[in-house]
């Protein structure tokens, strides 16, 4: 390493990256736990709301499902 004089670190270098026990969004398999997201890349209204989402899905199966915000 460099010959620069540096202080003692206050924290471990990788401290902010992950706290044990907290769900990791990137973890393989996490995608299928995402509400309203389908594995084929589509989504339904459950993605946007948990309140009677089925009522907000399109009325015909031929229509694309475009959940609001």
């Amino acid at each position, binding site marked *: *390493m*460099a*010959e*620069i*004089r540096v202080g003692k670190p206050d924290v471990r*270098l*990788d401290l*902010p*990256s*992950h706290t044990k026990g907290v769900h990791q*969004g*990137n*973890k*393989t*398999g*996490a*995608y299928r736990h995402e509400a309203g*997201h389908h594995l084929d*890349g*589509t*989504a339904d209204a459950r*993605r946007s709301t948990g309140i009677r989402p089925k009522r907000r899905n399109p009325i015909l199966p031929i229509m*694309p*499902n*475009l*959940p*609001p*915000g």
Partner: protein
Amino acid sequence: MATSVTSKQKALGKPEQLVEMSWDPITRIIGNLGIYTKIDFANRRVAECHSTSSLFRGYSVFMKGKDPRDAGFITSRICGICGDNHTTCSVYAQNMAYGIKNPPLAEWIINLGEAAEYMFDHTIFQDNLVFVDFCEAMVKDTNPSVLKKAKTAEAPNAAVHGYRTIAEIMAAFNPFEGEVYKEALQVSRITREMFCLMEGRHVHPSTVYPGGVGTMPTPTLFTDYLSRLMRVIDFIKKSVAMNDDVFDFFYEALPGYEEVGRRRILLGCWGAFQDPDVVDYRYETMDRWGKAMHVTPGVVVDGELVTTNLVDINLGIRILLGSSFYDDWVNEDPFVTRDPLGNPVDMRHPWNQTTLPVPQKRDFGDKYSWVMSPRWKHPQTGEHLALDTGGGPFARLYTTALANLVDTPYVKATGSSVRISLPKGEKLPETTLEWRIPQWSNAIERDRARVYFVAYAAAMALHFVEQGLGLVHAGETKIFEDFEVPDEGIGCGFHEAVRGVLSHHLVIKDKKIANYHPYPPTPWNGSPRDIYGTPGPYEDAVQDMPIFEENGPDDFRGIDIMRAVRSFDPCLPCGVHMYLGKGRTLQKVHSPMFGQNNA
């Protein structure tokens, strides 16, 4: 500015009368770029130039040991102007290391964010910073005879922008007062909003991660973006017309002005805007997906395209020392000896670099900068080329035009030019602009390319919106991919920061970063003399440059030198301070550690 004056007889021309002049800092955010020159006023030329940086950042030092998933967020903080380019580049490098790719919609969203960033940053830099050097107030001060000519020179594109003479255009660029200056600030605001729609926050994105984005892909997202884009489209058409008029006038009014900031055509572009249909982020197929990018990567030497292969570009990168405050790392352990294709990786490649900073006093005869000297080794000649980025757009348009690969509904490369079609706006009709490869690599052509690239980014954004909206309408709204951080892995990301080439090289060991080296454009452009004595692009462009300013040494503004340096879009060019000695004794204090005792 120092004032030591020396006289000596030159073999040719008048006796040299050298005056040392320095601009330190030439800065935009923080004071870290200095230009030190010796000007020969008798022969009106710059005799010598050194470019120096007084700031050590050390990202490559403190990234070690961190979680690689944090890299995008940390490296974004390298810059307060193009942080998102770092995030994007880091995401590209991480995707390669993790063996994943972004879903197509995420890729279009990133492309849209980056296109907005180019529009935002180039507009604010060109109209609010570069044009301060070409505005009426400045030209009146430095070249009154040119302004006199401008008052009678008709503007050829008056029908597009509405200004009758060149002097009227120049007046519109006067800082804080000029019409265009003020309008450009509004446009920057709108383009910044476009950016925030896609990447969450400017300039450090909150919704761009490896494996995708967190932007919610609703139809409104794209229509909000599109409506803002259509509001600025006429401004872009007018800007191109005004820039062309002013720059053509400068060539005409000051014969020989093409020599300002001129250097050998040595350009590098690392490509931008991935094509989700092709990109898989595997190193083995990097050549294929690199060529599919919407800005073609490449290296241009003397007007000839040497390569468009990202693997060649990657393997040719060498980080040289020579005038930089670092110890050599050749005796350290290498991290990557062979790339995934089996090609040997040099010890001076960023994958193998170890940063060993050695703070010391600045000495122009020896070491004088914190910037290292990135070079590209020509595979045939073996030369270590000091590539520049031409401020970004110049190299991007140059390689894209020569490579002749980009073919989208709004932007087409032709082999010698790039054709950009912009649709009808609020007032102006549908317009096709054409950027043609110019004869020189000089200050004016770098500046001109910038405004054309704003049009390029706007036209590309239209294409990306159509693609993105197409996926959303089909219900394909997947925007992220999950992944596992590997125990070991390597990755490299190639992208274009606003002002030019950007690469991130990453090595992962034990799920942590073992080595991480971002190489943004300013180290390429602002590099000092390397071990072989080759000057960096700023130094090269300014050295031996003629001076057209009418002022003498006493009230010298250095406008031609500023135009030359600023044409590269140094990520730091707004606060130019010039120190006038006027016979005062100046005490030179140099403290690379900002006063901290280096005991």
